[in-house]
């Protein structure tokens, strides 16, 4: 059944709509959102199995033939990302039940949450460039609301900045679509790719490629365009922060990966060369930020920027091996960033501060929290049996094979700084003498801890099961490195 593709979009959509009617009834909201979230995961798993056995799934909405209507396309990359998104959404939801607080829950927190999931899943699944813009806006609109919900001063201030930056980048996105439409005269991604390949190399296409890089670079926090991210991600509460950190920037990265593997493959020397330079600078700047701060939130926020750089370095190298590495690392990073944000949410709750200098000795009282954080930190930096290893090794090896020793060296070195930055949290926060905290009572963290523990277990299994996952993920990368597969699946000639 091809209409299976729509389920990861329709389930969050209808869940959100139903939730609007039960705004004041919190238990009902929680039940409905749990059911909605679990059924999204189940639908995504079924779709993943279908894509694995039968190849790329496409669906023309309203039975209009491919270039004329909107096509939804689910290849291996997009379904893996949809599956990861649904899983992270479920875990963040579990965490929200315990931590978000009644006053936020009563004011449409869960509907906004599901609209965010809808936007992200839609952006991963769509096969139409303007539809991608619309799903971006669905996602961003939900993220504005989640960011400002609660209305504290810091949230209001940062929402203004986040809104302004995203309005500008959305304006640029529409500009990019307008230019692209005037060049190729179509909006379907496969058809655009076909037309661009027929046209061959021309200057205007390169200009549009760079414009798209700017647009998605703002969404995905690439080097000169990441300035908005540290402030905006600092403001919201922990589960919202985890959703943002795990999903929003990754949609930008996915869009860069999609457009740079499908559309702009004519003048690779310039466009991918530019992407490579920006990716390396992103890694360097992120690493500097990660070691500079002694605030736990800031450290993890700058680690997002490092990971963005690493993934895009793999995309810029543009060989099948490096793309496999990028997809590996992208999924790993979504899982582990969500886990880390939820963990530091708990740390801040028990310590009553986010400043590392005022913490210490948490492991005496909270051993479970401490060791989960330790494993998550090792997984983040890519210690071999855990999840971050395989992606990075593939990216580095492909970089060296392509003769880019400097870039690969910086990717390797960045692991060291990432490890240093998270170990700084572990050593200063968990070791040492137990400090006096505001709450003398032991804060009950068992329930809150289940959410990050689930994600950490996923990360460990993802690392241990590399052998089993490798064929799946190399299929995903094969579609990326070979646009013909995608075009033939959509246009069915």
């Amino acid at each position, binding site marked *: 059944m091809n209409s299976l593709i729509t389920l990861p979009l329709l389930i969050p959509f209808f869940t959100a709509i139903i939730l609007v009617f039960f705004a004041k009834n919190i238990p009902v909201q929680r039940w409905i959102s749990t059911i909605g979230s679990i059924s999204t995961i189940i639908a995504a798993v079924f779709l993943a199995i279908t894509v694995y056995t039968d190849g790329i799934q496409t669906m023309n909405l309203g039975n209009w033939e491919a270039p004329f209507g909107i096509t939804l396309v689910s290849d291996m990359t997009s379904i893996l990302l949809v599956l990861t998104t649904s899983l992270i959404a479920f875990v963040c939801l579990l965490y929200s039940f315990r931590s978000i607080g009644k006053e936020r829950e009563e004011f449409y927190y869960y509907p906004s949450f599901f609209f965010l999931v809808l936007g992200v899943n839609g952006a991963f699944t769509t096969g139409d460039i303007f539809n991608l813009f619309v799903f971006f806006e669905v996602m961003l*609109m939900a993220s504005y609301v989640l960011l400002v919900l609660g209305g504290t001063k810091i949230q209001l201030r940062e929402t203004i900045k986040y809104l302004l930056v995203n309005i500008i980048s959305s304006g640029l996105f529409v500009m990019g679509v307008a230019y692209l439409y005037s060049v190729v005269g179509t909006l379907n991604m496969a058809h655009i790719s076909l037309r661009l390949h027929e046209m061959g190399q021309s200057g205007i296409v390169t200009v549009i490629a760079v414009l798209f890089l700017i647009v998605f670079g703002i969404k995905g926090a690439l080097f000169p365009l990441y300035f908005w991210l540290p402030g905006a991600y600092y403001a919201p509460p922990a589960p919202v922060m985890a959703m943002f950190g795990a999903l929003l920037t990754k949609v930008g990265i996915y869009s860069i990966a999609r457009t740079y593997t499908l559309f702009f493959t004519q003048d690779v020397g310039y466009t991918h060369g530019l992407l490579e330079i920006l990716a390396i600078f992103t890694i360097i700047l992120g690493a500097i930020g990660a070691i500079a701060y002694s605030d736990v939130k800031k450290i993890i926020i700058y680690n997002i920027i490092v990971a963005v750089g690493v993934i895009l370095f793999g995309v810029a190298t543009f060989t099948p091996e490096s793309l496999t590495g990028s997809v590996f690392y992208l999924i790993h990073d979504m899982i582990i960033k969500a886990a880390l944000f939820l963990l530091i949410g708990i740390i801040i709750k028990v310590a009553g501060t986010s400043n590392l200098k005022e913490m210490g000795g948490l492991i005496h009282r909270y051993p479970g929290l401490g060791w989960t954080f330790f494993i998550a930190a090792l997984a983040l930096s890519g210690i071999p049996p855990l999840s971050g290893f395989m992606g990075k090794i593939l990216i580095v090896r492909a970089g060296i094979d392509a003769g880019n020793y400097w870039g690969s060296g910086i990717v390797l070195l960045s692991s060291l700084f990432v490890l240093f930055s998270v170990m700084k949290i572990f050593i200063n926060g968990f070791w040492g003498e137990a400090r006096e905290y505001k709450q003398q009572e032991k804060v009950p963290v068992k329930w809150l801890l289940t959410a990050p523990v689930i994600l950490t277990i996923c990360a460990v299994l993802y690392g241990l099961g590399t052998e089993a996952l490798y064929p799946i993920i190399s299929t995903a990368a094969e579609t990326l490195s070979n646009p013909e597969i995608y075009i033939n699946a959509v246009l069915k000639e």
Partner: protein
Amino acid sequence: MEILMSFLIGIIFMSATYLMLSKSLLRIIVGTGLLSHGVHLLLLTMGGLKKGAAPLLGQHAEAYTDPLPQALILTAIVIAFGITALFLVVAYRTYQELGSDNMELMRGKEGNE
């Protein structure tokens, strides 16, 4: 005609950029409004400004104008409208809570409340 429109859109973008770089929050919002006007006009222009009937089949014309950019603009207009409404409300709340519309004063250090 396209040339003239391009100049016009360029001027709109120029004014929008200038306004968005100013200190007052309301000027910034006016700037975003101008930006979306410019972007929508650009979509219309880039679709081509050839002569033709309005895209209504009842007109029975030889040639029609391109209906696709018009649909895109309509979508983009309502999205921009929704976001501008939210932006205005957030700006109003911010003025009430922080007591200022000056972006210079809205800097704030790490998580100060």
